[in-house]
């Protein structure tokens, strides 16, 4: 009798402890936990920090409610309010995920736009540098900017927009340095006073050709063109190459710049290191004055000479020279046969106010 009573008590305990697990947890509980992980994976902390904070807090409250419910004796547990609570949490999570997606799209577009902007800017600066043969001063910065851009593209592809935005901040530094390096050269070609001076020089030369019925030569450095005039009218245009630093005005020996000014042919050399050559009278009086003034101001090396032997020569137009004007050999033959010693040669930066450098500067 006693034994059976003990067995009954034991069975009762066991059934309470083991047999009565009660109703299963609502699936929304697990789903809400999974959604929390989804939010974390989607970088909610970055793109929707407030929503994420609220979600985690709601999840915590939901779990506390669940714990409270679990505390009840299995027969009295009611998960319906928990289910409702977790449905709300899930809805909040879905909205947060949508918000994150929207934020990411905005960031992605913004980063892509800025990448495109800087790619265009770098390309413009490279084009300008190449136009004035000054790649050597700008390319170092531009290449660093391009390397940064390649990292940015990678970050954008991976959806690491915040890191991309951080890196984007250093790009203007590199492009600004590149622009700074070429600006002093470029600005001359957008300066109306300078261009007016060049135009006057060209007009004088053309008028001289007209008045005396002679040939004269005008070289436009920015267009890389040599125009042969006869009796004041353009007779032929040739494409040319100029000095390594050809876009600058020559100041001293070894600066590799092509001089600007009014010159004339002093010697015709039918045999030259560069096929045929027409020597001009660089340095003229203006060049000497400029040289002396620059030396006084300390703008040129202390022991530098003024230089000389500036020629229009053959050997090709695509190479860089030490400051001379290079032409294709067949065109050199033609020009050589037309002009004489004494033919005026005027070298200018440009005669157009809207030249390709001034237009490109506007795009910067």
């Amino acid at each position, binding site marked *: *009798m*006693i034994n059976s*009573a*003990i067995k009954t*008590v*034991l069975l009762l*305990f066991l059934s309470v*402890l083991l047999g009565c697990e009660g109703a299963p947890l609502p699936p929304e509980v697990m789903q809400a*936990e999974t959604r*929390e*992980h989804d939010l*974390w*994976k989607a970088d909610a902390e970055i793109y929707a920090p407030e929503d994420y904070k609220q979600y985690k807090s709601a999840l915590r409250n939901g*779990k506390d409610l669940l*714990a*409270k419910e*679990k*505390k009840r004796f299995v027969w009295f547990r009611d998960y319906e309010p928990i289910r409702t609570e977790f449905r709300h949490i899930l809805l909040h999570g879905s909205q947060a995920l949508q918000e994150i997606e929207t934020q990411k799209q905005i960031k992605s577009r913004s980063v892509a736009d800025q990448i495109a902007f800087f790619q265009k800017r770098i390309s413009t600066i490279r084009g300008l*540098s*190449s136009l004035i*043969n000054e*790649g*050597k*001063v*700008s*390319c*170092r*910065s*531009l*290449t*660093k900017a*391009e*390397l940064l851009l*390649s*990292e940015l593209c*990678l970050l954008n592809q991976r959806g690491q927009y915040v890191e991309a935005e951080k890196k984007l901040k250093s790009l203007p530094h590199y492009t600004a340095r590149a622009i700074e390096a070429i600006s002093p050269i470029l600005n001359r070609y957008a300066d109306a006073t300078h261009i007016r001076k060049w135009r006057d020089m060209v007009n004088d030369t053309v008028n001289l050709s007209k008045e005396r019925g002679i040939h004269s030569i005008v070289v436009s450095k920015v267009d890389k063109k040599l125009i042969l005039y006869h009796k004041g009218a353009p007779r032929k245009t040739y494409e040319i*190459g100029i000095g*390594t630093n050809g876009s600058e005005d020559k100041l001293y020996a070894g600066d590799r710049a092509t001089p600007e000014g009014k010159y004339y042919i002093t010697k015709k050399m039918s045999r030259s290191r*560069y096929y045929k050559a027409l020597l001009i009278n660089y340095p003229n009086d203006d060049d000497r004055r400029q040289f002396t003034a620059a030396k006084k101001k300390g703008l040129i090396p202390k022991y530098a000479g003024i230089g000389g032997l500036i020629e229009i020569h053959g*050997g*090709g137009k*695509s*190479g*860089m*020279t*030490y400051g001379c004007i*290079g032409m294709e050999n067949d065109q050199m033959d033609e020009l050589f046969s037309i002009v004489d010693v004494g033919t005026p040669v005027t070298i200018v930066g440009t005669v157009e106010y809207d030249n390709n450098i001034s237009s490109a500067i506007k795009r910067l």
Partner: protein
Amino acid sequence: MRRTSVKLLLVALALSVFLIGCAKKPETEINNAKAALDSAIQEGAEKYAKEEAKLLNDDLTAAQDEIKVQDEKFFKNYDKAKEMLASVQAKADSLKAEIPARKEKAKNDAQAALDAAKTAVADANALLAKAPRGKGTMADIEALKADAAALQDSIVEVETLMTSEEYFAAADKANGIKDKAAEVSAQITAALEKKGKK
């Protein structure tokens, strides 16, 4: 009959005391699991196994929630919580053991990318050395030299990242340098060919 009732009451009481008394809060297990997770994080889990570290952290929170549930119960049973904590500890230990290999792999990948970048820059420099010098040099050679100099500068930046164990960033930068160096080499080759034809 009265003796039987007393006996029954005593048995029930003994069982209750047994059940309640045995349910001791798993403090040691909590501390062990936390320590294991902290140790894995210190090893670099958040950098080299970010998602796994987060999941383990979630598991630890779940185990703590389970303890909280049991804390409030009359008949406490921490077995499930202990199981969860043991799992967290085991997984954290195993993750910690994996981190050095992952770190090593990231390092090796970054080093390989750096080596490839160095080779590509050296190739570009070798080509530049062959480029025609002096008067008549192709107009873009000087610019390409500046490109190559910038690449050389950037190699130094990658080496700095390697020293500070920023292997992923180092690999990205090195890959960019390699691609750009190949581009520069192609341009030099084109310039040399153009020159050769003249």
